[in-house]
């Protein structure tokens, strides 16, 4: 049991720096993940620290809203690297991201996630414009909300 835990921990901490660099598209970005107590990792906590591109090492609580979102996605994709779920559902993860970071996240999803299917909910064209298909949901008539669903296959419209 503790062997599997250590293996999981090592796998994710090896992967996370590379994933964070790819997500931020910047070799200067750094991510560290490791146990407080390397002898017996499952007894203590696991620390996570990101150094945003162009910045220096500081506590995670100093990060801005957008920087925290990128750090969170790096961790999520690193966990997937160890234990791949077949699909992700991400509800408005782009809310705190500026357009540059939205572009980076969208191209990471497109280029670096081969065995992963992604379903995102988004209000921003800069994000959902990268999708293969759009599921449009609109409110229909009724006493209470009735959701109507439309499907657009975008792969028909542009040559990928």
């Amino acid at each position, binding site marked *: 049991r503790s062997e*599997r*835990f250590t293996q*999981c*921990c090592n796998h994710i901490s090896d992967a996370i720096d590379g994933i964070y660099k790819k997500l931020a598209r910047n070799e200067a970005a750094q991510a560290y993940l490791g146990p407080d107590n390397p002898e017996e*990792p499952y007894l*203590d*906590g*696991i*620390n*996570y620290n990101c150094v945003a591109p162009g910045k220096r090492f500081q506590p*995670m609580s100093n990060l801005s*809203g957008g920087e*925290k*979102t990128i*750090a*969170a996605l790096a961790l*999520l994709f690193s*966990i*997937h690297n160890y*234990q*791949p*779920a*077949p*699909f*992700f*559902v*991400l*509800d*408005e*993860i782009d809310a*705190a991201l500026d357009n540059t970071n939205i572009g980076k996240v969208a191209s990471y999803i*497109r280029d670096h996630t081969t065995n992963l*299917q*992604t*379903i*995102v*909910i*988004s*209000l921003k064209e800069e*994000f*959902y414009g*990268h*999708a*293969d*298909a*759009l*599921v*449009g*949901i*609109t*409110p229909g008539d*009724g*006493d*209470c*909300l*009735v*959701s109507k*669903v439309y*499907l657009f*296959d975008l792969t028909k419209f542009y040559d990928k």
Partner: protein
Amino acid sequence: SFLQYIEMENFKSYRGHVVVGPLKQFTAVIGPNGSGKSNFMDAISFVMGEKTTSLRVKRLSDLIHGSSIGRPVARSCYVTAKFIVNGEYQLEFQRSVIGGSSEYRINGNSVSSSAYLARLEKMGINVKAKNFLVFQGAVENIAMKTPKERTSLFEEIS
């Protein structure tokens, strides 16, 4: 495996029988505020075994269409997830609310909740691992967990 269709029957704001799909490698769900986008995510989370508090309701019966205004249209509702496995055969998971409790089916055969969840886990789907569903407003918290919380997350995954 690949999630191809989600079918809903009287689930939250989806009245009657509604089929969503075929889904692609990268699918985006769009629409105005309050139209039912997060309800669609609740449908996927529900069929994957998520508990009611993560579905923004107090009781399972609140998931039935119309119960938000106290007038449920039916006594039950269900969601079916249709996967294609290795490009060949279809694998269907169905979870329904009947009366006040859940029923589970795999390819149409009724199974226990533990058999259902075990089969999902074999595919890498484990809602307790919180490694594939990111609810609205929750993304930043993933990075801000305490070291102890992270340890228990890794324990669940390994």
